[in-house]
């Protein structure tokens, strides 16, 4: 990847439909400059992978009880409980056609950022980043209209009990996914959102040798996102698609 600058959007805490709509709106309207978006989720939310069944993966009744949003992503991968975390999206038209290689390149930027916080993190294929062998970040990507979108989570803290109350874990996975084991397999940064955001901006800047330039959502992007919330991400047709 050879790029001049990175547009940085810090869009704060938003609902799940709005978060996914902004990512897609950015994908639709991306120019030649790559975009790094940093955001959080309020209320907490569960996102499921494009190919997953909402009914089979999520305790929707429990989500409703706690006021937790539920949304389907346009990317594959697994169900994620978004609570105390920083989420990033990176969009670019300049990328390696080899999917695993492009995961590695973008995850490297995250890893450099985590390094700035003092963590020695590693890319763990297919789509994870680990610290001392424990997962701290899950990532997923799609390619549409010559744009690569990769989004990923970075755990700042974790409420494992709540996570397991909203996610239905398959019996085929449960032998290594009990709550006790989850604590052994997951790690968190215990850093603030702002500290982590600053480190991530620096990590992407260093990885791509490009200046991060703070920007705001354009009105066209906001309009597109509103339309996508209304017509896609807040609809049963999309979220219960499978």
């Amino acid at each position: 990847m050879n790029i001049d600058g990175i547009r940085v959007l810090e869009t704060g805490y938003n609902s799940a439909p709005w978060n996914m709509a902004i990512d897609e709106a950015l994908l639709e309207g991306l120019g030649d400059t790559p975009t790094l978006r940093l955001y959080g989720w309020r209320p907490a939310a569960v996102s499921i992978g494009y190919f997953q069944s909402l009914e089979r993966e999520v305790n929707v009744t429990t989500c409703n009880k706690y006021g937790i949003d539920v949304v389907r992503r346009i990317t594959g991968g697994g169900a994620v409980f978004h609570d105390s975390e920083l989420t990033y999206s990176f969009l670019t038209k300049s990328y390696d056609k080899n999917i695993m290689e492009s995961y590695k390149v973008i995850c490297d930027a995250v890893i450099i950022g985590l390094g700035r916080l003092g963590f020695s993190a590693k890319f763990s294929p297919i789509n994870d980043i680990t610290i001392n062998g424990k997962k701290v970040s899950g990532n997923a990507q799609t390619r549409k209209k010559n744009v690569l979108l990769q989004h990923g989570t970075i755990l700042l803290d974790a409420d494992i009990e709540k996570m397991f109350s909203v996610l239905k874990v398959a019996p085929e996975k449960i032998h290594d996914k009990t709550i006790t084991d989850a604590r052994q397999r997951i790690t968190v940064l215990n850093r603030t959102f702002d500290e982590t955001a600053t480190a991530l901006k620096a990590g992407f800047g260093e990885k791509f040798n490009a200046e991060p330039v703070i920007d705001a959502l354009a009105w066209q992007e906001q309009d597109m996102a509103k339309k996508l919330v209304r017509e896609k991400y807040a609809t049963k047709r999309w979220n219960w698609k499978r």
Partner: protein
Amino acid sequence: MKESTNTYKSQKLIRVFLKYEKDTIQQITITGDFFIHPEESLERLEGELVGTKLEKSAIMEVVERSLTDSQVFGFDSQAMTEAILGCLDK
């Protein structure tokens, strides 16, 4: 018509919901935490599996042909075939 579901653990998890009659697939929905690029390939695969005999060679041929231009992470054609045929054991 018979209905069955199966969950199969490959590199990623594959869940299959199957309706079949006389050993032929009538309807199939495949879900899971895998990755397929482009994503629309899965809907095409499900469509092409309809009418396929529930036999290993027949299913594997459709899976391989249908996903030939796609990049898949989390399972291979063998795993997908076993995930589908596993519905018959339920």
